[in-house]
């Protein structure tokens, strides 16, 4: 009797679905070993099929995407009931991902921007989505937006995390194998490296003993040496504050790390860690020169919290702030 598995997406982009397809040849082996009972993007099973299963009948559900609407929360709870293990799949489920950046705005601001204010939108009637509307005599429902984006563990108990935006094929293969063969580590484990990306980075040896910067450079204003540590080139790289295990795929493409694996073990707030180490790289002790260096980072909050805002200490904008 083959174990049952489910894959589901909440507020996601489809990249984590791709991470399963990226198993390539191994995908056929996977499908031969398990019974996929629910995977909206690929199979025709519907929610009624899912409801009919007994509680705990699914061995593992891999859930990706952040919790942005009440429907995402409901489906996460349903899958939690029906599954023995829930695996948070990808950065959005683990820490809110890029979707979490929505927490810098209220839902009203988001809807207004998307449907009325964006320069490329033509919506003279000012139509915005509503929870209930009538169309052709039928009552239609849309799930409400949650007031803020949450990671998956903000609404259900999560057993394991596969990090990344998206997770690499190697990590997916390893995670799926652990689940199917029943060799899972301690509950709550993140199924990647424990330490930071720096520890295993191919450019590590080019990091000088004493690394200081006079300013920070953006990717668009400097040539990037493919053999030298980004930080040594005054380019912000979040490797020191990011969990390793991705095998340097961005570094290998001559792009600095943007933190998609979330923080390493022992760190809860990745962005705060980044603030700490990035600031401490500034060489000068003169307040004016320090301020100038900081001025060369246009959007530190968005950069340091790109994948983890929804799971950070402050989680988003303070309520009731007006910012013009």
């Amino acid at each position, binding site marked *: 009797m083959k174990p049952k598995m489910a894959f589901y997406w909440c507020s996601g982009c489809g990249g984590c679905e791709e991470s399963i397809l990226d198993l390539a040849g191994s995908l056929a082996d996977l499908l031969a070993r398990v019974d996929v009972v629910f995977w909206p993007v690929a199979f025709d099973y519907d929610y009624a099929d899912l409801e009919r299963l007994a509680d705990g009948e699914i061995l593992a559900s891999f859930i990706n995407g952040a919790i942005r609407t009440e429907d995402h929360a409901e489906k996460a709870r349903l899958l939690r009931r029906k599954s023995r293990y829930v695996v948070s799949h990808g950065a959005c489920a683990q820490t809110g991902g890029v979707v979490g*950046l929505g*927490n*810098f705005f209220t839902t009203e601001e988001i809807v207004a921007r998307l449907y009325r204010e964006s320069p490329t939108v033509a919506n003279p009637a000012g139509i915005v989505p509503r929870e209930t509307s009538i169309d052709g005599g039928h009552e239609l429902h849309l799930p409400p937006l949650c*007031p*803020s984006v949450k990671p998956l563990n903000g609404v259900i108990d999560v057993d394991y995390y596969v990090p990344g935006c998206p997770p690499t094929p190697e990590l997916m293969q390893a995670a799926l194998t652990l689940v199917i063969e029943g060799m899972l580590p301690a509950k709550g484990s993140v199924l990647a490296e424990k330490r930071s990306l720096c520890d295993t980075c191919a450019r590590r040896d080019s990091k000088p003993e004493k690394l200081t910067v006079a300013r920070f450079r953006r990717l668009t204003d400097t040539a990037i040496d493919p053999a030298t540590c980004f930080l040594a080139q005054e380019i912000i790289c979040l490797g020191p504050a990011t969990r390793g295990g991705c095998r340097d795929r961005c570094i290998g493409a001559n792009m600095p790390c943007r933190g998609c694996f979330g923080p390493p073990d022992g760190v*809860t*707030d990745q*962005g*705060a*860690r980044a*603030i*700490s180490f*990035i*600031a*401490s790289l*500034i060489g000068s*002790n003169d*307040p004016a020169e*320090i*301020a100038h260096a*900081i001025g060369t*980072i246009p*959007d*530190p*909050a*968005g950069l*340091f919290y790109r994948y983890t805002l929804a799971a*950070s*200490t*402050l*989680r*988003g*904008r*303070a*309520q*009731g*702030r*007006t*910012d*013009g």
Partner: protein
Amino acid sequence: MREKEKAKKTPKAVDGFEPRIICFLCNWCSYSAADAAGRAQKAYPANVSVIKVMCSGRVDPQFIMKAFHDGADGVMVLGCHPGDCHYKKGNYQTQKRVLLLKKVLGQFGIEQERMELDWVSATEGDRFVETVTRMVERVRQLGPLERRA
């Protein structure tokens, strides 16, 4: 991220509001100053809760964010004057971290005036009293920090 305009600084002193200020003091300088103020029986506002650290450089941005998340309306870090740090360079690192953190706090909708870094040496009991009193009044004018759930 789209460009953000400067936060409107609207003073909204709320009747009966007592600001809650968390104050990190370094063992060698500012904590001694607070002690000196206490020994000399100088009064300072009870709104201030003190956390002693060995060096202001120990203050991680995570601590400051946690303080705001957990109910602080303002946070202070008081260290040794530049050049006088017991550990030579700790307070220079604090300065860099706090400057970058303040920029980030602004993006989180937390006014930069709610976070202060200053230098108070061991003999400056009066300066300690003035600095914290000024901070309490400033935050009282800003009003309570409203938080998202």
